[in-house]
């Protein structure tokens, strides 16, 4: 088992970071996210919001991985989130549902409001393989390095959505022309090798779709 933990600070307040986190799909850094559905949502008696989402992600096997074992390089992921608006904490746990014998990745993310108005993000990951054939360690190391690379991109995705939310709050929406929300430059292409096509290369076409969808929602707000 490989374990990894890291913290990060957002300069924005907790409520807007939480909103951006919920709105993060789609974004040009997450073109590997094929679908995302809410399968359960409720407000608990204590007032927290519980959400279960089912997400389909596209991945890719490394070149050294034996051929013919995984025919479908896609993975179902379940994401369980609890939002505590009183304690100003979001906790989110994610894990893959299939290919678990090859590799199980469990991610835990916590967003906490800080007294100085910023938001702390604490991320933990556990990568476990039960594959055997002398490949267990290599699979775990590969899984962890991909997790780290994807985490960076996921953060950039959240930051991009944050930027749009910030702009939308500064400008009165529904009054200005469509162009008043300016988009940042498209993100640079993926820095990783061809075997890692699971790490998304941003696509301008998807960017137009995601941003117009987000903007249309912001306009309604």
């Amino acid at each position: 088992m490989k374990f990894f933990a890291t913290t990060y600070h957002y300069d924005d307040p907790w409520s807007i970071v939480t909103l951006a986190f919920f709105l993060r799909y789609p974004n040009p850094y997450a073109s590997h996210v094929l679908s995302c559905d809410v399968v359960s949502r409720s407000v608990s008696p204590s007032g927290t919001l519980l959400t279960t989402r089912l997400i389909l992600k596209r991945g890719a096997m490394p070149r050294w991985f034996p051929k013919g074992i995984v025919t479908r390089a896609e993975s179902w992921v379940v994401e369980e989130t609890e939002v505590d608006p009183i304690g100003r904490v979001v906790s989110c746990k994610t894990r893959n549902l299939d290919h678990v014998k090859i590799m199980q990745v469990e991610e835990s993310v916590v967003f906490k409001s800080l007294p100085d108005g910023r938001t702390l993000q604490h991320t933990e990951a556990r990568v476990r393989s039960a594959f055997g054939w002398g490949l267990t360690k290599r699979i775990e190391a590969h899984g962890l390095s991909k997790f780290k690379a994807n985490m960076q991109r996921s953060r950039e995705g959240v930051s991009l959505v944050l930027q749009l939310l910030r702009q939308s709050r500064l400008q009165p929406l529904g009054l200005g022309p469509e162009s008043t929300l300016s988009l940042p430059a498209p993100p640079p292409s993926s820095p990783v090798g061809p075997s890692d096509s699971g790490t998304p290369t941003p696509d301008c076409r998807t960017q137009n779709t995601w941003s117009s969808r987000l903007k249309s929602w912001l306009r309604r707000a």
Partner: protein
Amino acid sequence: MADSLAPACTPLKQEYDSCFNLWFEGYLEPTLANATETSRKAHYARKAEEFEAKCGKVYKEYQACLQGAVKERGIEPMLQQAREEHPLKEAPPLLPKEKK
């Protein structure tokens, strides 16, 4: 507002997401700094009712569409198992209509 796993459910999903997002922004607002436990509970109970009143109908339609798609694709047993091993402290109560 990503697509649904079933293209047929995407319009309902997006309608539901828009409804949720509007409600969620209000839900996240810091309120009641000096409120009592009781008034806080009442506040979030009202929020839950408000959500049900505003988004309940489209949520049910979306879930009905989605459940058919989940069954068709054979994801259900996998999802059920994951839900049973729920990592959260408080298990979300399944809505009655989510049961088969």
